[in-house]
């Protein structure tokens, strides 16, 4: 990968509000060049979206996140793809991964209440034909997410002036 692309992606990864002017200063190249790179990477599906990391707990709304391990019977020719696609269609599903190990799909899910999530698992997920079993883990606390530490930061202890 070109270094300029790597640096653009690293910047966007933690700051989706791309400021072309700032990027061009930090990377030492023209705004137009950066805009082109970003457009190319959007087209190529390298940049898949611009999201915001939200601490919903602080925002005050009821909010529950769950990780669900799903065991699936692979289907002829399609493997896990078809089942994964079905699960992806639900808007409350955040992410679906194919996983090596004791189960097949890992689904991350967002709901308002525990009840809502359990209902989704029992009524929607489990009822898919190919799904053999599910195990639901509720997330109790997020310490770090998307590379960002969500705990309170301790004060820096560097002295103010040193040689």
């Amino acid at each position, binding site marked *: 990968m070109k270094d300029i692309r790597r640096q653009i992606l*690293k910047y966007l990864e933690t700051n989706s509000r791309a400021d072309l002017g700032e990027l061009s200063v*930090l*990377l030492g190249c023209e705004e137009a060049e950066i805009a082109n790179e970003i457009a190319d990477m959007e087209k190529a599906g390298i940049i898949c979206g611009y999201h915001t990391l939200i601490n919903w707990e602080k925002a005050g709304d009821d909010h529950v996140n769950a990780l669900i391990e799903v065991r699936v019977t692979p289907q002829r020719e399609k493997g896990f793809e078809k089942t994964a696609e079905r699960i992806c269609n639900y808007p409350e599903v955040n992410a679906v991964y194919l996983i090596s190990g004791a189960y097949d799909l890992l689904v991350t899910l967002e709901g308002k209440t525990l009840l809502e999530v359990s209902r989704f698992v029992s009524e929607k997920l489990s009822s898919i034909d190919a799904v053999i079993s599910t195990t639901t883990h509720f997330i109790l606390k997020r310490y770090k997410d998307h590379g960002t530490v969500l705990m309170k930061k301790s004060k820096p202890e560097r002295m103010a*002036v040193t040689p």
Partner: protein
Amino acid sequence: MRNPLSKKIVGIEPSGIRKFFDVVSEMPDAISLGVGEPDFDTPWRIREEGIYSLERGRTFYTSNAGLKDLKSEISKYLKRKIDVSYDADKEIIVTVGGSEGIDIAFRAMLDSGDEVLIPQPSYVSYLPCAVLADGRPVAIPLQEKNEFRLTRDELEAAITPKTKILVLPFPNNPTGAVMTREDLEPIAEVVKKHDIFVLSDEIYSELTYKDKHVSIASLPGMRERTLVINGFSKAFAMTGWRLGYVCAPKQIAEQMLKIHQYAILCAPTNSQYAAIEALRHCEDEVQKMRTAYNQRRRFLMHEFKRMQLDCFEPFGAFYVFPNIQEFGMSSEEFATRLLQEEKVAVVPGSAFGESGEGFIRVSYAYSLEDLKEAIGRLGRFVDRMRNR
């Protein structure tokens, strides 16, 4: 009572930085750009190795020159980075920071009255350490028009029959200047011609933003008359671990080791274990930090240009060194007023030698957010001073 003090030590000024630190520390809401150490935490895998060494009970002295594994990693690292081979057993001493290396090098090499050439502006320790070793420090004032690099003529003009050591502090604190191979070649010629030695302080060698660092020790005929000082503080964000090393031809290293042995015994053991991990597995971490520093460096240069603050573009360390002569005040006055009026701390260039007068050292070992805030305040200050 008799005077308890030695004349030699009383004659040495306390560091100008220290004075400034006392003022800043009484201002809780000041933003500082005055720090000479990385803002990054030591990479976690290095810290974990330090913790692990404590858990394993590795709490004893090591051999004087340092752990065998560490010295061998240092030897490989230097071969890889600067293409100079050092015998891990006889030519490398692990020290308490790079600073100890400076001290023991002078003490091992200087007799009373021997002159040490110190290009300035530069780090505050060279001069007092030379004095403490009974040497005679001779400053070479570097010029902004040469981008604070040492030139052949400046060096020639400073050499006398008593000259013994040239200190070569590049990449440079406080100017950020670097010297390329082309810059070093004429220096090496002069050094060989006059049969003097070089103390090459390369503590910032990992932090260069244009070309890779070149050590004068790698130039033909220079290895045998060069001492290379380096360490873990800047490259791996390990300042508080107090760990550095000095590499020198066997004949010199033997004598330095005696001083180290009697004064220090050995560098901290758990820092040494952690440092092995740094040299073996942290290339990526260093690259990440280098990229971040470079972005901030570009940001500062861009902002200075916008406020038309005169500043040569430095390509090393994590400092920029803007010229503030247009404001008609001393750098100390400028720094003091900037601190009082806008609560931004920078270090006056004069703290690094007389030739630093008229400049301030701005460190970019800060997050971009901090830099933005500080630069906003500096911009306001500069505007006000211009419209006085």
